[in-house]
């Protein structure tokens, strides 16, 4: 519509109509830009801004400039450990999601249609059930007085701690986020034309070489997308570590939640958020560059 009108006025005036050309080109970008501005950029900038002010028990933000939150977060061993715990947890969860999710995605993409449907259903189903509901299900099963331990106690006379430790948090997060790797891997392998691997074999590559140079290489964008999702979400996870972890399984996300909601210390929570965001972005960038340089992935279609 707009294009037609522009052309028309352009003809009428006999020279390019600058304003409507400009509108034509940039107007479609306005809604996404507005979305980013209001839901991402302004909140983040505001959070960064208030993280430089003192907390006040009465007014929450005192508006006296300070770097104390950052000093505390970066130099206090407790907070250092907490950042390290979050990063390590995210790396481990991402790694396991890749190790389990890639073969699963590959299987789904290459198996018979019936098995593919069943497997896809099995992967999608958990996504339909909310995380909290699922985790409560696990708690019923694995708690100290849960189903499994009751059976163990009755049969063998002892119980084991299946919940409230780092292992249960790790396994829980892997369970929750695995589909986020499986699905993009599946879809990127599915998109590879059937004849590429035979072509590679015909040109002298054995099965493994053909897989690596063709299938794996062409599914890297999907794998990369999936891992970044899992990593970012684990870095920011609150609910799963809270429900499945013990007192020491404190993530940066839980710290933000505790400071902001329970402590009402918005400036401190904002500083935690700022550090978390910077760390996450930096690590995603490093991972992305590494894969790009190592694998020669230069284009993202």
């Amino acid at each position: 519509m707009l294009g037609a009108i522009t052309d028309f006025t352009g003809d009428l005036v006999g020279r390019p109509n600058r304003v409507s050309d400009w509108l034509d080109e940039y107007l479609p970008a306005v809604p996404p830009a507005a979305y980013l501005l209001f839901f991402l950029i302004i909140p983040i900038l505001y959070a960064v801004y208030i993280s430089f002010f003192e907390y006040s028990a009465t007014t929450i933000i005192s508006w006296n400039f300070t770097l104390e939150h950052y000093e505390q977060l970066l130099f206090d061993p407790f907070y250092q450990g907490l950042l390290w715990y979050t990063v390590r947890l995210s790396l481990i969860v991402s790694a396991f999601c890749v190790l389990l999710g890639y073969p699963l995605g590959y299987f789904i993409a290459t198996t018979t249609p019936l098995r593919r449907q069943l497997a896809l259903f099995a992967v999608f189903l958990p996504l339909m059930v909310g995380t909290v509901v699922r985790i409560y299900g696990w708690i019923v099963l694995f708690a100290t007085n849960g189903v499994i331990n009751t059976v163990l106690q009755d049969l063998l006379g002892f119980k084991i701690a299946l919940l409230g430790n780092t292992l249960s948090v790790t396994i829980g997060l892997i369970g929750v986020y695995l589909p986020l790797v499986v699905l993009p891997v599946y879809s990127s392998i599915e998109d590879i034309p059937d004849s590429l691997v035979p072509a590679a074999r015909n040109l002298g590559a054995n099965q493994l070489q053909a897989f690596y140079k063709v299938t794996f290489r062409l599914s890297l964008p999907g794998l990369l997308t999936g891992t970044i999702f899992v990593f970012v979400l684990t870095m920011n996870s609150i609910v799963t570590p809270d429900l499945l972890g013990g007192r020491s399984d404190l993530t940066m996300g839980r710290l933000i939640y505790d400071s902001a909601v329970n402590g009402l210390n918005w400036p401190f929570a904002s500083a935690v958020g700022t550090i978390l965001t910077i760390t996450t972005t930096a690590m995603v960038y490093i991972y992305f560059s590494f894969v790009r340089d190592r694998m020669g992935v230069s284009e993202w279609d």
Partner: protein
Amino acid sequence: MAFVNIQNLRKTYGDVVAVNDVSLDIEEGEFVSILGPSGSGKTTMLKSIAGFVDPTAGSIVVAGNEMIGLPPEDRNMGLVFQRLALFPHMSVFDNVAFGLRHRENLTEAEMEERVAEILEIVSLPGYEDRNIQNLSGGEQQRVALARVLVLEPDLLLYDEPLSDLDRQLREQMRREIKDLHDRLEITSIYVTHNQREALTLSDRVLVLHEGEKIRYAPPSEIYQDPQSKFVANFVGDSNFVSVTKGQNGTVTFEDDDISLPMHEADADAATDLLYIRPEDITINPPDGERVFSGTVRSTVHLGSVTEYKIEVGGNEFLTTDLGAPQYTEGDSVTVRFEDYGLVEA
């Protein structure tokens, strides 16, 4: 033994017999087409030769070596796919060098030389750094050829490589494939369901039907003496008439009193089906023998030729004539059957 020797090749999928005991000899440097309708087992044969299908029975010997049991990467064959199967994430150079990297131990400089050489041959000089996705259909086709030619394979296999191209490009690539073969003389097997490609490209044509070998002969022989109704119909068009054989070396159309002298070659044929090629029917010939009267039933102008349906006696005949339409529906004409023969029903 012939350069390629295929013996009793058979492949079944459950109850489906995709290839039914086909035997085939191909001499070194020969260009052979496998021609057949959809589902006749062409691809299955080609894949068995390339090593992507495990035949149920039979043997495939190339250059003296049994191929059955060898993985595809250990058969020195170049396969050109219908959808080309170029690697989208690699440059033209990396696509063409892919095989060299796996098959041969070359330095980077030697490899560059070989790639440049072959790109020259397929008329893509200097295309090394181009991105596959930005090439035209014809250029992609040439890269697909270069990628297998650079390995100097024993055997070149094509699976309908031109069927996705528009008509003009298809004609052009067909000529280029022919030129390449004339220059490089690599033994080739070309799968197609396009009789024109098969007839113009090949030294010999294998006609497949429902997994069975129907004919294996040079194109001219197949065209001039189709022997079976299937071949007469599939390789070029044909009109068919049921006939009865007379005593005095004639055949008489069933339901009609039209008689034609029988060719000597057909004297012993145990069949009563006559085929007449559309181009072997002349409309309004100067007076002479074998002239019959008929009525034009339809006229279709196809550009350089016009196609008529003409009713003669109780039968309708398809015929073609050069140039623009000269007769219209309802016109009374005479026709002469110039050439014809008997085929198995």
